[in-house]
Structures are given as structure tokens and as C-alpha cells.
């Protein structure tokens, strides 16, 4: 078993160095090899997971007597028509199943989340404990309305709408700035984690 672990550590070091040659140097043969290798492995893994899922949730229930599920096998068999061009349009049917149910789910979920967040955003500035949060909740109210008005299509944005547009854009920028800044920690942690993995595998720490 120890030999496998050593081999694993060597593979790990080699792969990390190869893949890091892209940002730290430039696109090269080693990087390209890792790229194609990784894509192959992930495709294989996803297929294994999919086959296991089908085995567990479709094939064994059918053998156990849920004959109704044969329907889904027949329907998804239509997906294979894409290998034979004249009947390729039949693949649309199972895809419509996916798209239809996604849209049904999303319609309700979108309205529900819009309503929920609208209620959660309805602050009363006077009820806030300190000046900072009072001021903040005023920003929240203005931000919600101006951002919603920023995304309107039917009216020309002039007159009062020009002003809401401008304020909306500034407040959207605060949001983008915040999301840019708050991610730095995560990114550096991942990077630091890889350095740690590399150093551990090399036996330096």
C-alpha cells in the first residue's frame, strides 16, 4: 500500500506543477496534457455516477415490479436518435420534459423568492438601534426601488427615471464591490491550500 501512496504523492506533485505552468509561465504541452487528462477523467466519473443512479433508481425498481418506469426508458431512448440525423428531432421530446419541469419549478420559486426578499427588505429605519444601521436601511430601501426601476424596458430613462437610473447604478456598484471583496478570502484560501498540499507531499512541512 505504501508504494501506492508514494506513487500518488509523486503524481500529485507532478500534476500540480504541470497545471501551474499555465498562469506562472504560459500555455505549453504539459498543461495541455493535464487538461485533456482531467477532462477525460471527469467525463468518465460523471458517466459512472449516472449509470449507478439508473441502476439503483430505474432498473432495480422495474425488476421489482414498477413497470410504469419502463416508460422513462422508452422516452429517454429517443435521446439516442441524435446519432441518426433524419430522426434527430425526436430528441426534443425528452428534452421538453426537462425544460418543462424546470420552468414549472422556476415560475413558482421565482415569485416566492421575490416576495420573500421583498418582505425581508421592508425595514423601518426609525426602529433600528444605531445611526449606522438607520442610515443603512435608508440605503436598502432606495437601493431596492432604484435597482428594480433600472431594469425597466418600456419607458425612456429620462426625467426622474434618469436620476433613479444613476442612483441605482451607483448602488449596484456597491454590491459588485462587496461581492468582489468578500471573495478574496476564499480565493486566497484555496491557493494557500494548494501550496500546503504541495509542501506536505514534498515532505517540506
Amino acid at each position, binding site marked *: 500500500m505504501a508504494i501506492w501512496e508514494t506513487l500518488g504523492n509523486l503524481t500529485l506533485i507532478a500534476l500540480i506543477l504541470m497545471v501551474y505552468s499555465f498562469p506562472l509561465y504560459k500555455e505549453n504541452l504539459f498543461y495541455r496534457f493535464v487538461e485533456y*487528462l482531467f477532462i477525460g477523467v471527469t467525463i468518465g466519473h460523471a458517466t459512472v455516477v449516472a449509470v449507478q443512479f439508473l441502476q439503483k433508481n430505474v432498473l432495480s425498481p422495474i425488476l421489482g415490479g414498477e413497470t410504469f418506469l419502463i416508460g422513462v426508458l422508452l422516452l429517454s431512448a429517443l435521446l439516442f436518435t441524435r446519432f441518426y440525423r433524419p430522426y434527430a428531432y*425526436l430528441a426534443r421530446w425528452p428534452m421538453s420534459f*426537462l425544460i418543462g419541469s424546470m420552468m414549472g419549478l422556476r415560475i413558482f420559486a*421565482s415569485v416566492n423568492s421575490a416576495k420573500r426578499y421583498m418582505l425581508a427588505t421592508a425595514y423601518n429605519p426609525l426602529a433600528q438601534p444605531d445611526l449606522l444601521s438607520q442610515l443603512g436601511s435608508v440605503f436598502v430601501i432606495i437601493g431596492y426601488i432604484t435597482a428594480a426601476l433600472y*431594469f425597466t424596458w418600456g419607458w425612456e430613462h429620462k426625467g426622474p427615471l434618469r436620476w433613479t437610473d444613476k442612483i*441605482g447604478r451607483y448602488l449596484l456598484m456597491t454590491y459588485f464591490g*462587496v461581492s468582489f471583496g468578500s471573495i478574496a478570502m476564499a480565493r486566497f484560501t484555496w491557493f494557500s491550500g494548494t501550496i500546503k498540499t504541495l509542501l506536505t507531499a514534498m515532505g517540506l512541512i
Partner: protein
Amino acid sequence: MSSLIRRKEITIAIMLFCAFFVFADRAYKAPILLDTSKWVQKWVLAISAVTMIVTFISSIIRNTRRIQTSLSEGDGPDAGSSIVGQWFYYGTTLVASVLTVAVGLTMGIQSNPYQWMYQYVFQNLATAIASFLGLFYIGAAFRAFRARTAEAAILLICGVTVMLTTNPFGEAIWSGFPVIGSWFLNWVSIGSRRGMGLASSVGTVALAIRVILGYERSVSAGGE
């Protein structure tokens, strides 16, 4: 016959059927709706798993064809393109995917070889590439955080203060950073974030309607 099953009304009917039952299950809790939406969702998961298998097969076909083309030194549809001479890479993808599937299906995911591959290749590379982001982030921040316009200045101030808030290092410099940073994080940015979210919700619903009714020509129509 052929013209009949080509009609786009069939796909629209399927979409309407699925959308209605999945939607109605959430809105109105009657047993028949619940049961129907449950099997629709079960079928959806099964179909998506089959999609992956179809994609796997077509990736094998495509890579085999590419290897043939790249070995044939420049005739065929891809002559002169970047494919020529690249057979080694396509072969890598092909072998890696087929090998993974073979090991995974015959020996199982819990077996030692598969776990070895998963730990040292899959997990290792996923983490290593994700950590690229740390490096790319610096390049992006270096360019983005220049106070050229009013908008960019806002971006700079919010970004840097929040950076110093999430990191304990900021508090060590000045205890005021976390206060300002959390104010941006918890108050100022929230309103526009949710306003944008509202707009996206409306956009999603409108897209759903257009797709189901067949107005988004390229994605919803079945026939021509």
C-alpha cells in the same frame, strides 16, 4: 407521419404538461397533483442521467474521429486546422474516460484503484485549478480597483474595506475596518442586490412563458 411527429405542438404540449403539474404541486396541495409531479420529477432525473450516457458515447465517437483526422496528415473536413498532429491529446481524453468508466463499473466506486484515481487525480486537480482563482483574482483586482470614474471609485472603496473585513488581518490594522466593511456588506449593498434579484425573477418567469408558448424560436420550437 413524419410531418405529424415533427410538429412543434407536441413538444409544447409536453412542456405545458410538465410545467403545469410541477407548478401546481407547489401552489395547491392535492394528492393527485402531488403524485403526478413526483413521477414527473423522477422521470426528469432519469432522463438527465441518460443524457450523460449519450454524451459519453458521442465524446468517444468525436475523439476517435479526431484521432483519425489528426493522423491522416491533413485531408478530410478539418484539414489544416488545429487538430492535425494533436492525436496524443485526444487519445489521452479517450483513454482516461474509458478507463475510468471501466474501472468504476466493474470494480465499483469503493474499490481501491478508483479511490486512488479519485483522490490523487480528480480531487487534486479540482483543488489545484480552483486555486488558480487566487492568482487570477490578483490580476483582476489590480486592473479593476483603479478609481478612474465615480463608479470605479465606489467599487474600489467597497471592495477594499470588505476585503479587510473578511480577513482578520484588517482588524489588526484598524478596528474600524470591520465596522465599515460590515456596514457595506450587511446594509448598503443589500437593497440593490435584492432589486436586481427581483428583476431576474421577473426575467425568469417571462422566459418560462416565452419558451413554453414557443416564442423563443431557437430553444422552444420543435419543427420548422
